């Protein structure tokens, strides 16, 4: 772009100003990382890489390891995606393709409303409604008849990894649902009609257009949901049971990375304790960063393949 003097001074100022704003975002991310790194140095020096695989968390003896928290965050988020993905994609298809017009607006409005509820409200609802229901209706019968399966081993308390996963899934459904709906809506009407006019059923039409068009978008929606699940703090800590142990059974209490930081940061008096909490924050930061980076890479490939397919 050729730059002339005079009138383009304004352009230049505008460009520089917006550029500074963009740079500020970058600067904040770097600063965040730097501060987390600096504050976690004492713990890094003391425990090193063993911090990642140590299962003890003892503030009295100042022995710390992040394994139970990493495990809890990963399992509860995975569980949430496992439940939320089929539910929200199914709901999105129904709302877009089958639902009568009078139903579309209220259902999608309510679904989006779910996204606006503060997480502490979800947590309270979790304690008073979800946990007792899950405990009596699902977990107790499951341990009774399927207790030999390691995933369903008792005893049943209520607050558990399962409760956290189910609550998280409810919290991320609105995100995956609304993005999936947008993605489904981008499929050209003509393509859908083409499949139908060739004698395809609705199922075949959906399979073809979704397979061709929507997989990258739905994948992106899932990553968005995963991002929310990984970092969710308040609701998780209220139902997960806050027990720093990596146990296979979904009915046993666990702990998550964000939850332990929120729980112990204010009253962490020892330097190593505080530094270990910051280190957990750094690991969480790195984890979400890696997830987003990987998602970006996969998405680029998917989009390339999808556009080649048409």
């Amino acid at each position: 772009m050729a730059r002339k003097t005079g009138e383009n001074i304004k352009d230049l100022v505008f460009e520089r100003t917006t550029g500074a704003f963009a740079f500020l975002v970058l600067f904040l991310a770097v600063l965040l990382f730097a501060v987390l790194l600096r504050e976690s140095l004492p713990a890094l020096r003391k425990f090193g890489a063993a911090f990642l695989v140590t299962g003890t968390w003892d503030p009295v003896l100042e022995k710390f390891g992040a394994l139970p928290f990493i495990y809890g965050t990963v399992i509860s988020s995975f569980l949430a995606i496992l439940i939320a993905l089929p539910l929200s994609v199914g709901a999105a298809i129904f709302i877009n393709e089958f639902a009568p017009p009078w139903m579309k607006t209220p259902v999608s409005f309510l679904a989006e409303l779910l996204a606006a509820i503060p997480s502490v409200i979800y947590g309270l609802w979790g304690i008073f409604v979800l946990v007792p229901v899950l405990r009596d209706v699902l977990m107790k019968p499951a341990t009774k008849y399927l207790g030999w399966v390691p995933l369903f081993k008792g005893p049943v308390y209520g607050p558990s990894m399962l409760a956290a996963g189910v609550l998280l899934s409810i919290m991320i459904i609105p995100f995956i649902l609304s993005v999936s709906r947008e993605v489904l809506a981008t499929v050209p009407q003509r393509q859908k009609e083409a499949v139908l006019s060739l004698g395809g059923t609705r199922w075949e039409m959906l399979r073809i257009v979704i397979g061709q068009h929507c997989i990258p978008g739905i994948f992106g929606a899932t990553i968005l949901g995963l991002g929310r699940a990984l970092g969710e703090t308040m609701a998780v800590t209220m139902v997960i049971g806050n027990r720093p142990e990596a146990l296979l059974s979904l009915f046993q209490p666990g702990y998550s990375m964000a939850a332990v930081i929120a729980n112990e940061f204010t009253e962490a008096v020892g330097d190593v304790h505080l530094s270990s909490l910051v280190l957990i924050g750094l690991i969480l930061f790195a984890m979400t960063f890696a997830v987003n980076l990987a998602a970006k890479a996969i998405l680029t490939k998917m989009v390339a393949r999808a556009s080649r397919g048409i």
Partner: protein
Amino acid sequence: MKKIYGVLAGVLATIVVVSFAFAADPLTINGAGATFPYPLYSKWFYEYSNANPGVRFNYQSIGSGGGIKQITAGTVNFGATDAPMTEESMKKLPGPILHIPTALGAVVPVYNLDGVPAGLKLTPDVLAGIYLGKITRWNDPKIAELNKTVTMPNADIVVAHRSDGSGTTDIFTNYLATVNTEWRAKVGRGPSVNWPVGIGGKGNEGVAGVVKQTPGAIGYVELAYAKQNRMKVASLRNKEGHFVTPTLEATSAAAAGMAKSMPDDFRVSLVDAPGKKSWPISGLTWILVYKDQKDEARGKAIVQFLKWAIRDGQKMEAALDYAALPKPVVEKVDKALRQISFRGKSLY
């Protein structure tokens, strides 16, 4: 355009007027720390500022650990804590500090057991056994033999504890470590510890939530919290062998029992206190002030406030479910307040 300038001028004028109003404003005393005494301190600040319009308070209840950090850094005029400062953390201070006791709190075991009324009897060793995971069922003979009048249900004990670091946990674990050698060796004491068993709830409300929602659960909360939520409270055998129900009187009795052996710096634990009526899981909460004040007016205001707090302020404690300091302790605190000085001159 003219309109905009008019509005701007109006806004500026308001800012100037407001800042002048603030400039003529009373002295503001900043404090930060423990959450446990926050409702009491709020009431005190309100009442005191009403009676003395020259002083205003700004208190942030960020937790005891935070209060100690802030007073160490000198960003506040006073700190507040539920656990006395350790020798190690006192070494980091720029000058000598005083622990001024302001109120007493009690931690009480609460439970959820159908068919078992409030007042379940527990001994220190049984309570420790439950929290160590050694006593796992409610009809364990060790519990049953203490409670012969009720039939203990054949149910699992679900142990609940605080997941957040807190002064409540510090008092509770300090008690268990004092009365039980195994607990002392295996777990120890602190605002957060490595619990042998149980599930964690965030805050008093989190533990209460677990206990209320889970049949067979036992937890510990602050006395005020248990009272206000009408939870079933256990009675505990104290140092002199009496079973005591937790009340404000029983908590004050614990402080009275310790009054004689109270050290001059008040950094004392009230757990397992002597006295027939003493509730054994009691603790003090303190305000932290530097002995040598840097600002004469502020220092004087703090001393005047503390003098009021240990006299008139104590009368407001019961209504808010705090236990008042017993008389011998108040007299001792009054003496300590005389040590607060500005350039060597007492501000009392």
